[in-house]
């Protein structure tokens, strides 16, 4: 699968990235964050995706953004995750969308890239009050990526 992606830049510590979404609603800066969750271990990270609100100088997901580039944005997030894993090969990554629809989008992308992702990570999903191995045809509420040895 070779979907077009946006160019992105990284912070020097490779734990935050940004790229510009371009479309009918103009240019919107997207931020991808890998924030450490130290209580769960040295290498445990939460993946977050937000929009930079230039007027308020904060990150949020309340910025109306319908640039019609959903697939390109998700492909860029996937590429960023790959870049991050290259710098942090022992990192565990927890992923949950801020809304059910966003989680569903992540689900679809993980399912779409499952063969490639599966070479690097074991993937688990949470549903019905329990964690289980990810299956592309099942809808999960959140996801956990464990690096393969």
């Amino acid at each position, binding site marked *: 699968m070779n979907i077009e992606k946006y160019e*992105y830049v990284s*912070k020097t510590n490779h734990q935050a990235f*940004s790229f510009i979404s371009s479309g009918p609603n103009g240019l919107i800066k997207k931020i991808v*964050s890998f924030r450490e969750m130290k209580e*769960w271990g040295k290498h445990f990270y*939460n993946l977050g995706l937000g929009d930079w609100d230039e007027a308020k100088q904060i990150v949020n*997901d309340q910025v109306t953004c319908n640039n019609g580039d959903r697939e390109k944005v998700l492909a860029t997030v996937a590429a960023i995750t*790959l870049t991050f894993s290259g710098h942090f090969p*022992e990192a565990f990554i927890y992923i949950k969308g801020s809304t059910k629809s966003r989680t569903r989008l992540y689900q679809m992308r993980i399912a779409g890239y499952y063969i490639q992702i599966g070479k690097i990570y074991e993937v688990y999903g949470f549903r019905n009050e329990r964690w289980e191995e990810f299956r592309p045809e099942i809808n999960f509420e959140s996801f956990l990526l464990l690096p393969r040895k």
Partner: protein
Amino acid sequence: MPATKKKNSSKERIRLISVRPPRTRIDKNMPDFNKDPFFVKKAEEASAFLREHPLPEEILEKIRGKRKK
């Protein structure tokens, strides 16, 4: 004439290409977005979720196993 061993088979090259991180431009002036309240809150919500829905022992062992190194 002795047979020469290929350094990287095509499978190995594909593996390296697929896992090697692409070149990324570094923005030295990028703010520390990870400290933005939005991402702090998201991480706190994630922690709360994981406390309420503990990971199975088999996954925790893998995490602990990584920590022991």
